[in-house]
């Protein structure tokens, strides 16, 4: 299964409510057959710009990153579900890129071109 990353911005709430929202999100993923690998908390900070969602203007938010393995067919369902969740300000699902370290850097490329 390909590996995805969900960058989740939740509304600035109290700790038990944030925990409940995260629990709901992870359960949504697991019910549809995804395997959650890792979850990171990037902290609560001021949003870079005011985001309007569900008729509310948000200035502060808590950032979370959820790594998971899933079938590509469930992604549209998951994103649709997250858009309808009132506590979620902005959900974004990305493919996880793991190949960046294998590429040759420009210095090596330049030296190869000079020799060959």
């Amino acid at each position, binding site marked *: 299964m390909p590996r995805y990353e969900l*960058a989740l*911005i939740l509304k600035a709430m109290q700790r038990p409510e944030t925990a409940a929202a995260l629990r709901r999100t992870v359960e949504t993923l697991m019910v549809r057959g995804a395997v959650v690998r890792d979850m990171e908390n*990037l902290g609560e900070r001021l*949003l*870079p*710009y005011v*985001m309007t969602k569900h008729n509310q203007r948000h200035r502060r*938010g808590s*950032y979370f*990153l959820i790594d998971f393995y899933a079938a590509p067919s469930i992604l549209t369902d998951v994103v649709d579900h997250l858009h309808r969740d009132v506590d979620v*300000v*902005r959900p*974004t699902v*990305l493919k996880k890129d793991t190949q*960046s*370290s294998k*590429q040759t*850097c*420009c*210095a*090596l490329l*330049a*030296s190869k071109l*000079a020799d060959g």
Partner: protein
Amino acid sequence: MFHLKRSRLLFGVFSRLQNASKPTALTSASIYQDQVKHNPFVKMDNPYKEPHKGCILCNVTVDFKNIQLLSQFISPHTGRIYGRHITGLCGRKQREISKAIKKAHAMGFMSVTHKHPDLMRDPNICSIKHVD
């Protein structure tokens, strides 16, 4: 070392003398050729060659989450992304930075119109002087 070289030269000369089925002239060219056969150090790369310099982000992975790194390549006044002639990055890294900044804008990680005030005091990488 000196003795080795002399003995090698002499060895070459002696082998020629021994294998003299046909009479060959002992010219300096033939002696040099003998030297070349026995001397393994003739061909080599320039030892004083400097290692090729890459751009500043050569071995650095670019990520949309790392807004501090990305903010070093935007204008502090308008938030616009600097061009290649200002940042001095190679083609690949410039594209990666540009894509990461736009991704961060869309996902709500980085501001579009300005630079985060906490990151204003970061060292200036790009070759641009701000008139403040």
